[in-house]
């Protein structure tokens, strides 16, 4: 049958399209030559160069801090928003609230970045806060769009949640708050972990929004990479990319294993 051949071949081509550029990038990061695409022998010198570049290291450290902070803020806000959306069937302004939660998911980055910058400038004019722009403003901006992602992840877990579990806890004498910490939180924990990780990677990845709301001296890693890449291919970026890809691959692998392990729990009655 024709279909029998078509699908596997299409999938194989698709996957090689996804992975070939990444694989070649990793290979060339070990290239001796500074001409990135001509192989001239194995070397790890670009990795060495990377770790002696204070600008890059500083930017990486700043990006990691911003990512951790904004993912954590987004975790709290996104979880609360998800609880409100799943559990409170009706409240005034629900449509507006639901819209505000999900809109950042599809809002073009340039608009988000521009609008937040204009807000910060206006706020500084009226309130004197935030003074200038830098890490704080980037964290606020990232937390805002990460909240939307956390909310989606937690929402889907919460809507699968069997409400009678909470009722059972209350029936056995647990107050609503106690029930939340004893029952609800442990059961949605995997979603919280993946929500946080998602927020973390998205923040680490963002170039456009950060470019708008950052100030002098607070260049994030993507901003530094972008300015390097704009000038042409640079081999130390290859090395950096390989490290990031390695870390992410490990992270996703770990997350997948955790999820597969926690699966049987979902199926319980």
């Amino acid at each position, binding site marked *: 049958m024709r279909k029998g051949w078509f*699908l596997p071949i299409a999938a194989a081509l698709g996957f090689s399209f*996804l992975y070939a550029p990444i694989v070649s990038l990793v290979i060339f990061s070990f290239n001796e030559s500074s001409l990135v*695409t001509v192989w001239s022998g194995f070397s790890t010198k670009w990795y060495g160069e990377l770790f002696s570049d204070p600008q890059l290291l500083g930017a990486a450290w700043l990006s990691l801090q911003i990512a951790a902070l904004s993912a954590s803020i987004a975790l709290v806000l996104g979880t609360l928003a998800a609880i409100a959306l799943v559990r409170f069937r009706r409240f005034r302004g629900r449509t507006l609230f639901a819209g505000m939660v999900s809109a950042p998911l599809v809002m073009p980055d340039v608009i988000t970045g*521009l609008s937040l910058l204009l807000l910060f400038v206006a706020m500084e004019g009226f309130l004197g806060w935030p003074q200038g722009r830098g890490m704080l403003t980037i964290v606020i901006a990232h937390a805002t769009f990460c909240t939307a992602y956390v909310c989606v992840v937690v929402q889907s877990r919460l809507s699968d949640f069997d409400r009678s579990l909470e009722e059972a806890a209350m029936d056995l004498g647990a107050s609503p708050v106690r029930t939340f910490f004893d029952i609800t939180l442990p059961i949605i924990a995997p979603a919280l972990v993946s929500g946080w990780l998602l927020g973390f990677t998205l923040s680490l990845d963002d170039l456009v929004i950060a470019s708008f709301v950052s100030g002098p001296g607070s260049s994030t890693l993507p901003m530094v990479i972008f300015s390097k*890449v704009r000038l042409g291919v640079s081999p130390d970026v290859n090395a950096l990319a390989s490290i990031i890809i390695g870390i992410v691959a490990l992270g996703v692998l770990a997350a997948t294993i955790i999820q597969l392990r926690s699966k049987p729990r979902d199926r319980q009655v």
Partner: protein
Amino acid sequence: MTATHDPTIPPPRRLKPWNAVEKGLARVGITGRMLVLIAPLIWLLVFFLVPLAVVFGISLANKQFGRPPYTPLLTSEEGTVQLTLHLNNYIRLFTDNLYVAAYLSSIRIAAIATIITLLVGYPMAYAIARAPDRWRNILLMLVVLPFFTSFLLRVYALTGFMRGNGVINQFLGLFGIEPIVMMQTDFAVYVGIVYTYLPFMILPLYTTLVKLDVSLFEASADLGARPIHTFLFVTLPLSLPGIIAGSMLVFIPAIGEFVIPSLLGGPETLMIGRVLWDEFFSATNWPRASAVAVAMLLVVVVPIMLLQRAQGAVVEK
């Protein structure tokens, strides 16, 4: 009576600390609901909705030199407050060919790229949905994995692949084929969008396709349909919500894309995200950039509504 009551159990109506806290809050009129809602609500109002309003406001101002680089909307002179609105930014959008062309070309590029992504993504999603159970999770992970690696670095990886002396041209050179110019063309932009947004297309498609019962195909075959007919009249219509959701997830962000046209496209590749960026960073014309943003929002509003409806359908099934 005697058997059921156990004197060793303390009476269940002990006041627990949390109950006291809840009661205290309830007395001031604060319910648990409000506590849950208040933080995300205020955050999103201040950092999502208000900024959009500010953008709209500033789009009605004029550029000026100074800090901030736009004319104030409200001025007060001797006790009278005056509101000054300028429409010239919007008038400019419609009269200056640059902007109109940029919007049209953004929509065209995003639409063509979306169709290519669909054509590439559909067979992949279908193959994954029909794969044996133990393969499915691994294949899905392989789709998601690039999404988690840096977007910027993936675009960068493409430049290494497509440049004049890049991997593809070196490969073609082995067969004596002349190098092809790919970088800094619209073609490179299409490849870039397909490459980076493919996971967004595959995931919703997979979600709808995997839920289709195999017996549907068997029933169709049993009723005499050939595979191509089964696909056209059963599979395709049933996966329509996934097609719409996936397409919108690619189309909407592609319209406002900045990184891809600036790294892969040429100087003549006009996209509105890039225009906005230049207007803001190079020309420092904040009011004009705001007007561009407002117009861009209007362009994406319809696709966003389409997306919301399709997502509802994807989830419901």
